[in-house]
Each structure stands twice: as structure tokens, then as C-alpha cells.
């Protein structure tokens, strides 16, 4: 670590002001990504602005057919919230598969989405559900938000405040976890919302992406067999020491089918 100043603002305005005043300041939420980055000296912020306790960034509620979750809501809260489990069980299930208890007890929705790790779970839900990412300045549609590995539409000094998820008719997430971290080696989120099917894939490519072929096939026929008939081209997919691109291509199909089976076999149309 390099030296930095730690600041704990009392309000969102103050946090935004601090970020505006210091070029090299960074927001600190759960710290589950940022602190290891600092420890490895991969970042050298002048200030850490701790936003984890800001009331403006907290809370879970359902209004007008949307589930709205504050950016500083911890994974464990999403996983166990009765509101989420009732309104969007697939999202609660997704949150319960993130990392390990320590990570879930500190890591937050906003931190995860802002960070946009190519293997993170939440981005798949945000994209497949067509959610809206709210900041103190504007509202950003999921399709515009994710822009590749660790890259998003967020600008300097901009803070995610909450995310609004339209409630799907049916949805499920299936993931093959990295054996050590729990991150998605590949994860597939399938959602049908307002009569439209969206399929988002994380872990397999350079950043979360929509799997258009799967969406089209499922629009034709909402069944696992539609997925099994697809051919996935591994070129452009991620390869690392744990799995070559072909393995991830295979996982996309396996996991999408599992998500569908979970949806179709479950009376609530819920989770994988």
C-alpha cells in the first residue's frame, strides 16, 4: 500500500464534493476489490471516500414494478432480503453465490457493478434484466452501462446511487464458479421481462455481454433444447490457465440450459 487519507462523508453531496475536489480520490464501498488492489500497489489514490454507510445509498424496495436497491447494499443483504427473495428470487440466489461469507458481508452491489470485473456476477443480472443504473447525475440503461473489461459509463466523480431492476416474469442465473474465488468462470442469466427474453453472459468474454443467438432461439421457443441446438464460436472468448475458450463456450450452453431447466421446473419460475 501507498499512503492515502481516509475520509468518511456524512452525505452523498459531501461525498460528491470530496470526489470533485480531489482528482486522485476514490470511493470506497465494501473494499473487497479496492483494498486488495491497494495492497498490491496497483492503485495510488490520494483519498479514500468511504461511502458504505451513506443512507442515500442504502435500502431495498419495490415500487412501480421495479426492485430498487441502494448501491451500498451488501451482498448478504440482497441474498437474505425477503423483499428480494419474493420479488426477484433469481437475484437473491445470485447474491448468495458471490465469493464467501466474508466477501458477502462487506462487498456491495454498487461496488461490484462499478468495478465491472469480467467475472463478476451482478453485471449479468443488471444486463439480462435491463436494469437502470442511477448516479447522482443521471440514469444509465444497462445496455449503455457496461463497456468492456473493468470499463463502464461512469465518469470521474460520478457515484452509483442505486439500481432499478424491472421485475421479470421469470428468470434464473446459473454459474460455474472459479474453484478458489467463487467468481463466475462463466455465468448465464436468463430473464423474460414484459414478454421479451434477454440472456446475459459473464465470465466467458471480455466483459458481460448479451447472447443474442440465445435470445432469438428462446423467443422462438422458451426451452433448454433451443439452447442445446446452438453452436457457440469460442473465438473471442476468454482463455486462462483454468479454462480455454472452448471450455467456456461449452459452459455457456450448459449453464443457459440449466438456467432454463430451473425456470421451467420451478413452480415459482425462479432460480438455478
Amino acid at each position, binding site marked *: 500500500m501507498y499512503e492515502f487519507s481516509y475520509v468518511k462523508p456524512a452525505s452523498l453531496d459531501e461525498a460528491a464534493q470530496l470526489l470533485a475536489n480531489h482528482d486522485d480520490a476514490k470511493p470506497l464501498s465494501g473494499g473487497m476489490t479496492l483494498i486488495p488492489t491497494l495492497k498490491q500497489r496497483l492503485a495510488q489514490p490520494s483519498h479514500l471516500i468511504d461511502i458504505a454507510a451513506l443512507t442515500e445509498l442504502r435500502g431495498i424496495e419495490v415500487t412501480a414494478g421495479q426492485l430498487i436497491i441502494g448501491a451500498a447494499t451488501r451482498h448478504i443483504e440482497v441474498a437474505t432480503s425477503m423483499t428480494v427473495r419474493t420479488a426477484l428470487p433469481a437475484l437473491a440466489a445470485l447474491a448468495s453465490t458471490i465469493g464467501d461469507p466474508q466477501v458477502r458481508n462487506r462487498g456491495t452491489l454498487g461496488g461490484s457493478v462499478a468495478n465491472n470485473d469480467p467475472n463478476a456476477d451482478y453485471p449479468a443480472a443488471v444486463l439480462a434484466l435491463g436494469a437502470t443504473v442511477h448516479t447522482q447525475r443521471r440514469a444509465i440503461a444497462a445496455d449503455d452501462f457496461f463497456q468492456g473489461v473493468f470499463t463502464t459509463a461512469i465518469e470521474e466523480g460520478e457515484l452509483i446511487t442505486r439500481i432499478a431492476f424491472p421485475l421479470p416474469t421469470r428468470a434464473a442465473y446459473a454459474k*460455474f464458479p472459479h*474453484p*478458489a474465488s467463487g467468481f463466475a468462470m462463466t455465468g448465464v442469466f436468463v430473464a423474460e421481462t414484459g414478454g421479451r427474453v434477454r440472456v446475459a453472459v459473464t465470465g466467458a468474454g471480455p466483459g458481460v455481454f448479451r447472447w443474442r443467438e440465445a435470445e432469438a432461439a428462446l423467443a422462438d421457443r422458451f426451452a433448454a433444447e433451443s439452447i442445446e441446438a446452438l453452436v457457440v464460436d469460442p473465438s473471442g472468448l476468454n482463455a486462462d*490457465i483454468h*479454462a*480455454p475458450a472452448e*471450455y467456456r463456450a*461449452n459452459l455457456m450452453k450448459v449453464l443457459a440450459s440449466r438456467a432454463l431447466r430451473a425456470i421451467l421446473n420451478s413452480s415459482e419460475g425462479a432460480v438455478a
Partner: protein
Amino acid sequence: MKPVANLSPEPRVVGKRARRIEDPSLLRGQGRYVDDVPAEHALEVAFVRSPLAHALITRVDLTAARAHPGVAAVYTAADLAPILTHPRMPFGFPTDALPRNTTPWVLAIDEVAHVGEPIVMVVADTRAIAEDAAGLVEIDYESLPVVSDPRTALQPDSPRVRRELSSNVLQHYHVNYGDVNAAFASAPRVFTEHFWQHRGLASSIECRGLFARPDPATNVLTVWSSTQMSHELFRILSEALALDENTLRVIAPEVGGGFGGKFMAYCDEVATVAAAMLLGRPVKWVEDRREHFVGTIHERDQFWALEAAVDAEGHLLGVRGRMVHDHGAYTPQATNVAYNSASSVTGPYMVPHYDLEVFVVHTNMTPVAPVRGAGYPQAAFAMERMMDRIAQGLGLDRAEVRLRNLVPTAKMPYTKPLKNRAGAPVTLDSGDYAACQDIALKAIDRAGFAARQAAALAQGRYIGLGLAHCVKPTGRGPYETAVVRVQPSGRVSIYTGALAMGQGLKTTLAIVCAEQLGVDLDSIDVMAGDTSLNALGMGGFASRQTIMAGSAVHVASLEVREKALKVASHLLEAAAEDLELRDGRVQIAGVPGKGIKLAEIARKLRGSPGYSMPGGVSPGLEADSMYQADIQCYANACHACEVEVDIHTGETRILRYIAVQDSGRLVNPATAEGQVHGGIVHGIGNTLFEWMRFDEEGQPLTTTFADYLLTTATELPMIEVIFHESPSPLNPLGVKGIGEAATLPVAPALVSAIEDALGPFGVKVNDATLSPVSVLSLLRGAAQAAAQA
């Protein structure tokens, strides 16, 4: 030497489950590991390590590093030269069979031969400052050709791993007996297979570390090291640094696991002590995990080509083959891993003729030395896979083929025409291998498995059953030391050259002592691995400590007991036969309370000026013993397991795991079980997860635990441990080693089960580590083969 009395057939304390005496302090966070030793004003070390697998060092510039605030010194090999007796490390466990120029350099001089090799040492006020300054050291390299596969390294035209080598083949030999070629020439059936096996790292929770503190008041340099062998480290430090033995003390504090990685003196340890001597100040180096991955030994790859000749009923007629062993860049400590593999292939089986050709080959990767199991797991894997192949080829049951070849109890002791390192014959001393197999198969309900498998298959699930045996020689000699002393306070002290590193050794030794002295475990203190307390000692390795140190403590405790009885008999005016040791006293048997405390006897045996010793005994209620043995006792195990393989993702889930272990008499079933659990978890890692990977340029690819995968609790089934006790006739306690015997059968048992699960696809598994990706590619390969057929 008078014969040692064996443990009584009905011991009072030995064999009962006992809580570990180590735990109260460890659980309260009071354990003191090397980094916890108070080190005020100590300087800390960071090393600049080679980023390349093979290169010449063409320029080193230390100017900026030396000028960095808080830096006390920056050393190269040239700076340490004046106080080193030799620029290379002394041999670990010296042998005449190896050339002098095979050990690592203390610091590299002008050539580096693996990533992680230390070149420059920075000593500073803190580790953070030392790391910053290390980043300022400028080194220019000129790349040299890299050899990263031992199979190509042994080709005559291969580039050399180090310029000083004329060949990368360090050793080439045969281990053999009988006339194997004749046996094969006339054999009805011959099976041939190729195996690859990887074993990875020791991965102790606590990395290595050393703290050296010169003390001007006593002129003694005290060294705390997280080591498995204080006395050997003492020898190497005094040899490398020309230290008079009276000015050096090595202490192993709490050690957070060893598993072989700390069974060696390392160059970074010698360099740290050298720095303390040069600066006359306390100096500490604590290895971080990244250093551990490249700077601490591995036990990586072996490539086997093996053939088995059998008759029509599956009786083994002969085994022969060839094995290439990746030895890494240097030889820090002997070459026993390959020899252990080669001399143990035939395991628990009767094999009339045998020949294995062995190549021990250098590569530009981290040096290889024993990790828990030390070459034996690879041999067990190769042989057990062969047994499965024979069963498949002859259409016989896997268990039946084994039964036909296992050494029966009636033939024990069964001597094989092979020798261990000490030149002692390989003799299976005791055990009932067939009974262990029977117990394992009953426990896993082998009889009901076919129905379970069919039911699973009907649901599209693939389950398989695996079975494997092993024998493991345990109790490596030549000796271990123990002093047992009853203090005038009444507390009993045990001092030993053995080394406690988390296994519960202290509890085990205390139990052996308590058995003879009739004292509570809580009144016994065990001091292990301090060279100022025992002049000699060997340390912790090769599943030896309960056998060697346990027997030493037994012998010494018996002697203390005799002495206590003799003095008490004199003082109480009673015949020694009428006395017993109980509750810390010697008393007239059956008359509790009437007697004399051991503490009292200890006080009397300190002597009073001018008075003679009571009972005419020698001074001190204590005894000193060196237990010697060259012949090893053979522990054995039979494991059976059930797995489920996901044919869509290649994942393996272990459904049940049964371990039948015979480690002779158990001193403490609780710690014995712990050893078995740990051994199995290590074996699961070797089979499914642990893989220390390098690219063709010798760059390590797995230097964090996100990339080098360890088995964690979530992957584990309930492990069911069943002990079968065949006391060894070779030591007074009847014990055999445990820690490694549980690792050996794991890879062959799991792989056997995985292959069984994938039976419907005709998949053959000959390699471990076996990742989900490799399972899928095996399935794909089998499908392609089937399509072509």
C-alpha cells in the same frame, strides 16, 4: 545395549483419545511463530529474485537502493563472500554420490537458473522499505535458452539448465531384481501404460521465515527458524558461515505446517544469518506467499512408461519401465524423491521380477525435494493404475486382482530384494492387506454399488467406485533423541530433537511418557527442536516422529521409572515390585496416598553436599536416550471412494470416502485421525486441484492461491477413517507412521472411481492432476475414438 521393554499389552494412557496439549495456547492466539518472536530493533530483509528462468547477469547497480532512506545494507554474492566458507550452499544430507556443484548459490553470482532464485538482498528498517529498495535495484540480464520439460531436457542436444553442466541428467540408474526380460518374454499377457503425475507444493499455512539475533552479552547467535529440522539447519549454518558450535543456537518456535517444504536449509536462510553477522544486528526475513511459490521447493512432475506381465489369472510375473523425474534447477537436498518412487512401485504386491530405469533430470524451474509422500505417491499411483488395467484386460474384478497379488500376512515379514537408503532390506514387517481391503469394501457397500450405479445412470448421473492400496515405509533413521527429566517442581520436561509442526507431536510424546510415569498430560512440557537442549536430533519428516522420538521417549521414561522405583523402594522400605507410579507419586500398590511424590524424589536426586545419593542411584531423576533404527516399519492403507462426475462440466464430486489405515498401535486415535484427514486432503488436492504450472519459458503461471488451487472444506466429503491395528514388531511401542500413508492411495482411488464413473464412454485416465477441463477433453477424445471405430 540392554533390550527395551515393550509397551504393556494393556496400556493405561496410550491408545485413549486425548486432547492436544498444544491447543490451549494455540487457540488463545498465544502460539509464537517465527514472526511473533519479539524482534525490537530488528532489520528486515527483502530479496531481489530472478524474473527469468535462465539468464546471465550482466550488470547490477545498487546505487539507488543503497541510497534509499531506511536501508541498512544491500548485498550481492560478492558482499557476502568474505564470511561464507563457500559461495554455494552446503549439501543437505551429504552424500558422495553427487557432484559438489549441484547445490544452489547462497546468492546468484553471474547466472540464474530458475525464476525466484535470490540475487540481491536488501536489509532495511522494515520489510516495506526493503521491498521499495529492492524495486530500485537495477539488474541487466542476457537471456539463455530455457529447459522447462524434463523429457526434452534429457535429450543430448538439449540446451543446458546451467552453463556448468555437461548434461542435464543428474542421475541415470536402474532399480531392479530378478530377470525381468525373461519374465516378460514368456508372459501370457503384458499391459503397457503411460502416466503423468504432478505433486505440487507443500503449501504450509505459515510460509518459511528466519530471525537471527546476535547477542553481544553471551556471544551466542540465536536463530529462530520455521523449519522441520533445527539440528540440520544448525549444521549447515555453522558449516556455511564457519560458526563455532558454541556460538550458535537454533530454535524452531511454533511451526505452522511443514509438509516437506521446511525440511531443508535454504539460501535465503543462510543469507539472512550472514547479514545479521555482518551488521551485528538482529535481522529477520519472513517469506511472503509469492516467494513461497518460487523459492520453496516443489515436488512436480514424473513421467512414467510402465509395463506389467501377468499370467492368465492376473498374477504378476514382472513389472518394468522407465521414469523421468523433474528435479529442477539445483540439488538443495539429495535426490531421494526419485529413488523412493523407483524402489516402491511393487508396494503391497508380490512381484517376482522388476526393473525400472530412472532419469533424474534438471530443468530451469524451482528445485524439487520431498513434499508429504516424497515420491511414494507417484509409485502407488502407477502401480494401482496398472492393477485396474490388468483387471479390465482380463475381465476380472479390481478387488480380486489385488487379492491375488497382495502379500499375505502368513508370509510376513516379507523381504523384497530391494534396499532402502540406509542399505537395509525392504521388509514388509506386519499388516493384513487383504483384511483392510475387505473392511474398505464392506464400509463402502461395494455389494450394493452396481444397483446404485444403475439407478444413477437412469437419472443421467455418472457415479463410480474406486479402490487403491498402499504401503509406506515409515520411521526413517538413523536415530532420534529424547531427554526425560522430572523437575523438582514435579513438572516433567521432555527435550527432543524431533520437531513439532502442528501434528500434535508434543501430545504424542507426553502420552508415551505419562504411560510410564503415571503423571497427568498437563504436567508434562515438551521442548522440541532447540539445539541448546539436545546436542543431536534429526527432526520431522518421513512419518517418523512417533516411531523414532516416541520410542526414544519410551526408553527414557522407562529408565526414569526404574530410577524412581529404586529410590522410592529405598525410602519407603518396600520392595520395588510392590510399588506403582500413579498420580505423580510412587506408592505402595493399592494404597493410594501412601508414598512419595516424584517431585520429592527429584529434589533428593539433586543431591546434598557431602551426602551420598539415596538408593545408590546416579544424580538427577532423568534419563537421556538415543533411539536408533535403520529398518523402517511398513504402514499400509486401503481406500475406497465413490464419486460423481458431471459429464457436462467435467467436475468431480466426492460422495463418500473410506480410509482403512494400519499404522500399528495408535498412541492417540484423535491425532491419528487428524493425520489421516490431512493426508487425504493433500491427496485430493494432488488429484483434482494442485498444479504448479510453468510456461515454456520457465515462467511460473500459478503463484497465488487463486491460480494454484488447494482443496478447501467445501470440496470435502465426510472422511470415514477406520483403523486396523497390526503392531509393528520393530519398535517397543508397536507404532508405524501415519501422515504420509494416508496420502498415497488417494490419487489412484479417486482416479479409479472417475474412470469407473465414465465407464460408459470408455474413458481411460492415466494422469493426475485431473482438472474439469481435462475430464471434458478425455470425454471428447473417447467420443472421437468411438466415432472412428
